[in-house]
């Protein structure tokens, strides 16, 4: 691989790793509090899988040999400040109600389903292998979350109302994954990642069709789509909990 591509590729991987970590963390806030035992087991399983994905992707980032003092997966997770995180903004929002969390996970699963085929044929072999592993688990996640979204959208008036509210809040933010990032153009050219613009139309149309079939109205996207270095205070709250014990004892072995 052309050494000049290491930095933008690392940046791409960090964004995806941060997505998985932040989402997993949010999902794990439901453990012990889900609407019923079966949902608790299932959603905790998804959180566990996503954390594994994060670890895999942070590992790829570390392998690219950056010179930063903060480089290993644990260092990246526990010792960066909020501005240094590269997750998409939707991931860091608070868990809301069950409809909010189910929809968010569904959108993420559908976005991964869109990106992963291109990533599994990346010319950067470690990424291709990681993507293949992730894709196997994601297939199950998508089946799971799609089944829940369908049921909540088509359940009672109340559940539909909650899903509609969630969709209105989340749909514009979901577009962030398909906004072209100029820094990634060279990665696309080198066959390391697929082009966001090429994936966008199909994903968009599939999702609109799915939501309309569920009886939900897809809102117009009229707000600014954030960049990966644009975060909310929710991320600060999340990190202060996530990093609390590790930061209280820097250098300690756990």
């Amino acid at each position, binding site marked *: 691989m052309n050494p000049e591509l290491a930095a933008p590729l690392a940046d791409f991987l960090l964004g995806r790793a941060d997505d998985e970590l932040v989402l997993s963390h949010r999902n794990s806030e439901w*453990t*012990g509090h889900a609407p019923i035992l079966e949902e608790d087991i299932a959603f905790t399983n998804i959180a*566990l899988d996503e*954390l594994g994905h994060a670890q895999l992707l942070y590992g790829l980032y570390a392998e690219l040999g950056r010179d930063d003092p903060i480089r290993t997966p644990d260092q990246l997770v526990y010792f960066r400040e909020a501005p240094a995180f590269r997750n998409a903004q939707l991931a860091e929002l608070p868990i809301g109600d069950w409809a909010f969390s189910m929809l968010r996970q569904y959108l993420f699963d559908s976005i991964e389903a869109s990106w992963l085929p291109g990533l599994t044929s990346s010319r950067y072999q470690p990424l291709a292998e990681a993507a293949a592993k992730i894709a196997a688990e994601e297939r199950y996640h998508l089946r799971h979350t799609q089944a829940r979204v369908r049921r909540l959208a088509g359940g009672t008036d109340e*559940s539909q109302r909650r899903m509609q509210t969630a969709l209105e809040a989340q749909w514009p933010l979901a577009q962030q994954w398909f906004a072209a990032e100029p820094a990634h153009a060279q990665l696309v050219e080198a066959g390391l990642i697929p082009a966001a613009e090429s994936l966008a139309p199909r994903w968009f149309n599939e999702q609109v069709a799915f939501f309309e079939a569920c009886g939900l109205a897809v809102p117009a996207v009229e707000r600014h789509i954030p960049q990966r270095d644009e975060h909310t205070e929710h991320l600060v709250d999340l990190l202060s909990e996530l990093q609390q014990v590790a930061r209280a004892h820097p250098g300690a072995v756990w």
Partner: protein
Amino acid sequence: MSEPANGRETQDQLAAFVARIARGEKIEPGDWMPDDYRRQLIRMISQHAHSEIVGMLPEGAWITRAPNLRRKMVLLAKVQDEAGHGEYLYHAAETLGVSRQEMIDDLLSGRAKYSNIFNYPTLTWADIGVIGYFVDGAAILNQTMLARCSYGPYARANIRICAEESFHMKQGKEMVIRLSQGSSEQRAMVQDAVNRWWWPTLMMFGPPDDESPNTPQLVRWGIKTRTNDELRQTFINNLVPELRAMGLSVPDPDLTFDEASGNWLPGAIDWDEFWRVVKGDGPVNRQRMAARRAAHDDGRWVRQAFEAYAQKQAGRQPA
């Protein structure tokens, strides 16, 4: 020895039942069983199931603060297992004729009990290690015994649980070892956790044998094969040398080693505390129940939505 018979059960039926158990046969759903056997088992199994579910709360709270990725994943996997164990146990109880709905209602109303140990709070990260090492360690001793119990579905549920539980204890023990050998702050943290969890764990094995009137009958019925005091002593003998090797102290100034029996003999257990906590006046009983009730109430609209969808799919009007 003959069993006391109530009006419906004949001496012959009871004798035949006890003989089956003495032969090592498993009692399966649908087999004849004394009413008292069924009742005791429903109580024990549902209490066991509730313990797994409520037990998710003290540990689940620290997933978000686990100090490295490995610990975070391990804790997620452990708590997920506990939910799964609750499932296996509810299923085993259902084979005796009680419904899931009844069991949940009993838990949320406070009629049903769960293991007292989960009425204690997790105050530091070190508590998570100690819970795995002590509480899961104690549970393994109990569940290993129950894996041989006379009621088939409960025995099989415990076999499956034991297989999965081994990592629960080991991950906790690994953490306690690490902390005990770590920085002075980590050592202090884990010693403090040991001091708080030692006595409640000893109480997990139940009241002393001379205050456990059920035990002889449970032994005759093949549900218990070891008494509370026997299990408790095994636990103490296992843990004390290990804690001392780690440089940790046991919070029992009266603990002595008895050469003749090879047992570490504990000081007096405060059974007043035990009964107080059993009756609902422990450190966090109210918070535990509030959390379970909140999850149940807040989740009602979700359960109703799933039911409404299923009924629409089946072509019936939603209730």
